[in-house]
């Protein structure tokens, strides 16, 4: 089965007053047709920058794709001109953002905003475009689409705005939908509606989805595969069940252990990951997780671990996977207050 999208060894840096930030430091991802890939990680781990790099939306005067390759159906995207890229955005790959109120234009009716993409990519008349806009609004579950086309963003609730953004992204039937924290700004009951909408849309249109989130509950519900990012790198990639039931990287284990669950015993203290993520102005020479890792070895301080195959679906970037380290015994850290 051919991969729809492949990202290989992507490096992205930003020039700031404080120096160069290495936001993405060698990310590799793969997305198959009809699949949902979740990218998980904490703020600042480079998950949004990776997504924006795929869309080539990293602002060019400060951000730079240093090296690496992004291939859509075998076609290299990093070397395309802006003009060529415009034919891909919206038509081949679409993106939706966390906050619809700032991502969409408050002074233009939502109908215009939906039709803009259709007219640009398909070159059809306004009337036909309007019909498609009505069709897509129905698909995302907005009642009375004819009259709502004439309304502005502020006339919609938070959940409805998210639906409109999804409609705009899907209207040209892209092969890939990238959703950057699509449910984070929403209340739980609305969040459940939107997550369900993603699943329905995927069933109906077959679109492949990359969802970026820090909510492991959403991941469990929606993802087929998961890539866990930490400090600009993918530390573990596996099918969703493997990530939750057989995690290998200490960071993945730590993330899962630090979340309270509704069915867990509340007298047990939570198991946090001590410390904070490293500074990406000067990333550590070795593994970025070494300072917070309970199983850190001497080699972890000096050399970055390469991604190694745990099995054919599951890759881990950790020195504990090295055959010479296999004698290390995993024990869960005794839960301490701090």
């Amino acid at each position: 089965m051919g991969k729809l999208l492949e990202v290989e060894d992507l490096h992205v840096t930003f020039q700031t007053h404080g120096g160069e930030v290495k936001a993405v430091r060698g990310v590799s991802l793969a997305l198959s047709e009809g699949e949902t890939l979740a990218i998980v990680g904490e703020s600042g781990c480079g998950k949004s920058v990776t997504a924006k790099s795929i869309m080539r939306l990293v602002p060019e005067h400060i951000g730079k794709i240093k090296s690496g390759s992004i291939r859509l159906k075998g076609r290299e995207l990093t070397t395309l001109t802006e003009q060529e890229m415009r034919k891909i955005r919206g038509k081949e790959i679409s993106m939706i953002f966390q906050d619809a109120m700032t991502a969409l234009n408050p002074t233009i009716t939502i109908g215009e905003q939906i039709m803009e993409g259709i007219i640009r990519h398909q070159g059809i008349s306004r009337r036909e475009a309007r019909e498609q806009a009505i069709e897509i609004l129905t698909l995302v579950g907005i009642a009375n689409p004819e009259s709502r086309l004439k309304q502005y963003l502020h006339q919609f609730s938070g959940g409805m705005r998210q639906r409109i953004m999804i409609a705009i992204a899907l209207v040209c039937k892209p092969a890939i939908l990238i959703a950057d924290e699509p449910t984070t700004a929403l209340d739980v009951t609305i969040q459940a509606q939107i997550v369900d909408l993603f699943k329905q849309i995927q069933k109906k249109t077959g679109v492949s989805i990359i969802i970026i989130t820090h909510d492991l509950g959403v991941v469990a519900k929606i993802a087929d595969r998961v890539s866990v990012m930490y400090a600009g790198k993918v530390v573990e990639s596996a099918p969703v069940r493997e990530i939750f039931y057989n995690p290998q990287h200490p960071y993945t284990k730590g993330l899962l252990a630090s979340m309270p669950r509704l069915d867990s015993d509340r007298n047990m203290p939570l198991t946090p990951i001590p410390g904070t993520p490293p500074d990406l102005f000067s990333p550590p020479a070795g593994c970025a997780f070494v300072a917070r890792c309970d199983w850190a070895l001497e080699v972890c301080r000096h050399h970055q671990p390469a991604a190694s195959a745990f099995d054919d679906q599951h890759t881990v970037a950790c020195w504990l996977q090295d055959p010479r380290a296999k004698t290390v015994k995993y024990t869960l850290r005794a839960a301490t207050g701090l």
Partner: protein
Amino acid sequence: MERKKLVEVKRLHKHFTIGKGLLLRAANDISFDIYQGETFGLVGESGCGKSTTGRTIIGLYQPTSGEVLYDGHNVHTDKSREGKSLMRRMQMIFQDPYASLNPRMTVADIIAEGLYLNDMYKGRQRLQRVYDMLELVGLRKEHANRFPHEFSGGQRQRIGIARALAVEPEFIIADEPISALDVSVQAQVVNLMKQLQREQNLTYLFIAHDLAMVKHISDRIGVMYLGNLVELTTSERLYQDPKHPYTQALLSAIPVPDPDLERERERIIIQGDVPSPVIPPSGCVFRTRCPVAKPVCSERKPDWLEVAPQHFAACHLYQ
């Protein structure tokens, strides 16, 4: 066991006038007690009035009607010496660790401000108190002369906790104290709060929208919807046997980090959005989204009843 009621909230209303003669009913007829030494969780979606309730309890807002008693003293009207001391005995931890610390003050000044205002720990003792507080929350003495921007989100929240605890309070209102933090850091702050509660016999009002975290930290939980308290019971009971349809929907909407369980689970997805609190529905405020609404729900507001021992709900299903 008869426990001491530390905070008594009695029929508290807080309405805001928002111009054009409109009234925003942010908190409507809220009544509950908080016992000494417990953690009381208040949950609900954004705009449900949980923060307004917390801010009114501590006296940041004057109530429209109703009263809040702290250890027998009315928080809003008691101007006696005892009444004024409540400002010290109740402290607050805020949601946004970036906005709630003055960027122009050093950490030492931030923590010592309450000591200065309350005339506590004079002279050399004051700086020592600051150092002690920093150590208590897991920071170091060297941090005292730094400014807030030099710290990460989790560290800032620790500074906010140190500031609240410096004046030896008994009761802490924590308004979404962890929602601005990353998952791995949230657990650090929650464990710290639990540890401090044991060591200093603190009472907490923990306000949050993350039901899993609230359940983890609270002894009892109140659920709010559109300005009203709809259910109140122990955290175990609330999870095992939720009575109000809104609580049931809320619990079932929370995604569980467990793929097999998550994909099998029957869930109640409530349709539509929260109505405007300016024009709330007649009768029961949840009826417009309720899967089991009856005609009576639009006619009359359900009474607040004890539907099971220590389990209160306002719903016509149980009237």
